[in-house]
């Protein structure tokens, strides 16, 4: 039997915190320890055989079924053997537009393996992954903790050659793995770096009440997409009486086409951690977690280094800035490929060592979050902005944007444009203005805020992007006139079907039914009944689903049917009646 437990680096099992939570005192189980243990086991073994899960279950004192259930939930854990080189091709629509599918077929051919299958010798397997956060430099490939952006046929050949020579991916050229930041309009977050500790100094000088008021006066709203007023969330958490409070930074940036958090985590980790620290001071939290999407594992060494530096400088740990009682530290929890874990309650479940199934809400996390304790969950960009606001005061932030959406926002622009990358633009910027900035003016459509957002057609390009109008979550994918809108919509439905947690009926089944119908539509094997069903499914998912994922999963279809109706019509065969459909098909006489 494989000895997993001894090989696990102890700091990743037990976390940065020495004292375990009361709730888990009797177990070798703390926040994120199941994910960490499974990552460690898989790093050693390449996949997670039953014996390894059994051993981990015994070590963590959990039912075996909980381990298997979690392992089967996350895309990056493998309960069946995969290749020693297991290659993921990012499968976002922007990757596809840049030729990812042909590249993948080429690699399969070069290495003699079919997609989603294990080569006979066990060396290679190749499959697709949801957007890995490189939409500005696709097509991108993920192998273990290594990301290869901007892949070409020539690069695929080079990679295949290294695999044939059995060179471990850890020894592949670093130049192939250079992720660009592509700052096109940097904005305040990137233009003016802060000296570490500046916001903490201000915090102690002004006191928690004043700083909270500052955040409130700035008008800052959550920048992960939902737009909940940040100060309200903090105040709610602060006033909820409990034995512990927690601060979580949501770095599970999974919305297709978004990569702004990637750039913040790369260039401004200190600002993010400082924002979390300020929040901890205000709500009274001793512990914080950065929930980092599995795709961004390559960032961990730098993020850990930043945390170490801050601990050494007295900006994390006990008696921060010399103030007795101001104790706070941050631990990184690494996700494993599950979009749903960007939903805050699913994220909390994931940290609690379970499958990432969204909770029933209310209660909301500021009242009952991690281990049932009041918890602030904010997006990376939100925390970074908090630091900026604490240093600059609220006026500068509030002077930008619209009445209902204050401030400036980082947009991740990708797709058919001359200059993909990061654009800091105030809320209220119109689609046209953004298209001009990025060199994508001939676009016929733009997908805003990722798959869950809105597919916008030319007639709405003069609309502003803000919480009160077009969604402004940050992802901005440009589609030129040559693109097939049905393929765009189909790719999003495929995404939702792949990423649905499977908890509730409408989303679990509805996303898969919709995916299949879109496939039939593209293959021109569809019927009028299919189109009616597609509409009914989208409507039902919107109102009947358990969480935001399911409620927005029908958006690409609903927006497509309202703004791009022509795309759907010619493909419908009026006289095609599938055998199975005995009621709803009107067969022309």
């Amino acid at each position, binding site marked *: 039997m494989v000895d997993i437990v001894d090989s696990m680096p102890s700091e990743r099992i037990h976390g940065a915190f020495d004292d375990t939570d009361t709730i888990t005192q009797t177990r070798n189980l703390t926040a994120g320890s199941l994910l960490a243990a499974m990552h460690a086991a898989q790093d050693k073994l390449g996949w997670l055989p*039953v*014996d390894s*899960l*059994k051993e981990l279950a015994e070590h963590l004192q959990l*039912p*075996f*079924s*909980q381990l*298997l*259930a979690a392992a*089967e*939930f*996350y*895309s990056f854990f493998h309960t069946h053997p995969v290749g020693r080189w297991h290659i993921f091709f990012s499968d976002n629509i922007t990757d596809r537009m840049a030729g990812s599918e042909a590249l993948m077929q080429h690699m399969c051919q070069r290495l003699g393996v079919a997609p989603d299958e294990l080569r006979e010798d066990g060396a290679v397997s190749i499959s697709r992954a949801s957007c890995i956060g490189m939409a500005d430099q696709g097509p991108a490939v993920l192998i273990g903790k290594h990301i290869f952006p901007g892949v070409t046929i020539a690069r695929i050949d080079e990679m295949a050659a290294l695999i044939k020579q059995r060179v471990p991916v850890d020894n592949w050229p670093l130049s192939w793995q250079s992720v660009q930041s592509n700052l096109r309009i940097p904005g305040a977050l990137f233009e003016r770096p802060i000296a570490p500790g500046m916001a903490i100094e201000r915090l102690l000088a002004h006191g928690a009440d004043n700083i909270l008021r500052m955040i409130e006066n700035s008008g800052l709203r959550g920048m992960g997409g939902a737009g909940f007023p940040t100060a309200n969330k903090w105040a709610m958490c602060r006033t909820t009486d409990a034995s512990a409070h927690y601060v979580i930074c949501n770095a599970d940036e999974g919305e297709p086409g978004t990569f702004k958090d990637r750039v913040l985590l790369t260039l401004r980790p200190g600002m993010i951690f400082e924002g979390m620290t300020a929040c901890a001071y205000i709500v009274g939290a001793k512990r914080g977690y950065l929930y980092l999407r599995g795709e961004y594992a390559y960032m961990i060494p730098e993020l850990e280094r930043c945390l170490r530096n801050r601990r050494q400088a007295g900006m994390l740990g006990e008696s921060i800035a010399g103030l007795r009682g101001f104790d706070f530290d941050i631990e990184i929890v690494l996700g494993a490929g*599950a979009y749903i874990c960007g939903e805050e309650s699913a994220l909390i479940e994931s940290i609690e060592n379970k*499958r990432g199934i969204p909770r*029933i809400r*209310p209660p909301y996390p500021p009242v009952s979050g991690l281990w049932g304790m009041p918890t602030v969950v904010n997006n990376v960009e939100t925390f970074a902005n908090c630091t900026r606001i604490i240093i600059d005061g609220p006026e500068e932030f509030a002077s930008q944007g619209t009445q209902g959406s204050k401030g400036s926002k980082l947009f991740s622009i990708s797709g058919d444009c001359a200059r993909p990358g990061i654009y800091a633009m105030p809320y209220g910027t119109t689609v046209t203005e953004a298209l001009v900035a990025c060199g994508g003016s001939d676009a016929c459509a733009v997908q805003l805020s990722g798959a869950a957002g809105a597919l916008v057609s030319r007639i709405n390009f003069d609309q502003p992007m803000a919480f009160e109008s077009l969604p402004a979550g940050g992802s901005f994918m440009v589609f030129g006139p040559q693109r097939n809108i049905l393929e765009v919509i189909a790719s999003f439905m495929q995404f939702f*079907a*792949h*990423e*649905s*947690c*499977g*908890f*509730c*009926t*409408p989303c*679990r*089944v*509805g*996303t*898969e*039914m919709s995916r*299949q119908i879109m496939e039939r539509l593209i293959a021109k094997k569809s019927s009028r009944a299919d189109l009616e*069903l597609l509409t*009914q*499914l989208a409507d*039902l998912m919107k*109102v*009947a*689903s*358990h969480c935001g994922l399911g409620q927005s999963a029908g958006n690409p279809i609903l927006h497509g049917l309202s703004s791009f109706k022509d795309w759907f019509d010619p493909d419908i065969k009026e006289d095609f009646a*599938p055998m*199975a*459909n*005995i*009621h*709803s098909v009107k067969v022309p006489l």
Partner: protein
Amino acid sequence: MVTEEQISIDSVEIPFHAGETIMQAAYNAGIYIPHLCYRPGLSVHGSCRMCLVHVNGHEKAACTTPAATGQQIGNCSEALRQQRLLLIKMLFVEGNHICPACEQSGRCELQALAYDLGMTAPDLPHFQPKRTVDASHQEVNIDHNRCIACAQCVRAGDEIDGSHAFALSGRGIQTRLIPNAPSGRFADTAIHASDAAVAACPVGTLLPKHRGFNIPIGQRIYDRKPIHKLAMEKGYIHHDDTAGKS
């Protein structure tokens, strides 16, 4: 004295206690709201969504929504029937439910509720997934073809007898029921036919052996009366042919 608060379901005022959900309040008042994953005595799951109701005009799941004074709740409209009908059809689409050939016909809540909502035949393209039957256990079969992922067995195992016999595993449409055994075989769990987890199954996934067709189809519990009537009768035990016989 506790002041009674009230909600209105289809214009009927009913009382509720603070902390109750709409489903609990309706149950106590003898009003049936369709459901498959809800079960009094188990924690609330909220996954099947069959209990979709209109609360002040907005769709909510009755089993997860707290009752609050002044709520105007719609439960019996044609619009809701249509929505629930599509939901239950989706459960048929994702599994393999061959009612005429199923041992559980007549005592299956999925079938009973489908009839209740007006579903008479499958009319959507079905997934027809390849699913397995685990007949390794001496007393109980697991037929994965019929599982609707309601997690009643999971919750009963966790909350009633602490057996942790089951879990829902996987993600999305690949969600599946697993027994708590590294071998993956049901026989290697400590479960018995009399366990709460087995009795909890509202469909035919967990099916006790050695009693096949002990009551002829046609004389079973949901053959006698529609589920919306039976479920509100005194002494009703779900899918128990002997309970609540009037």
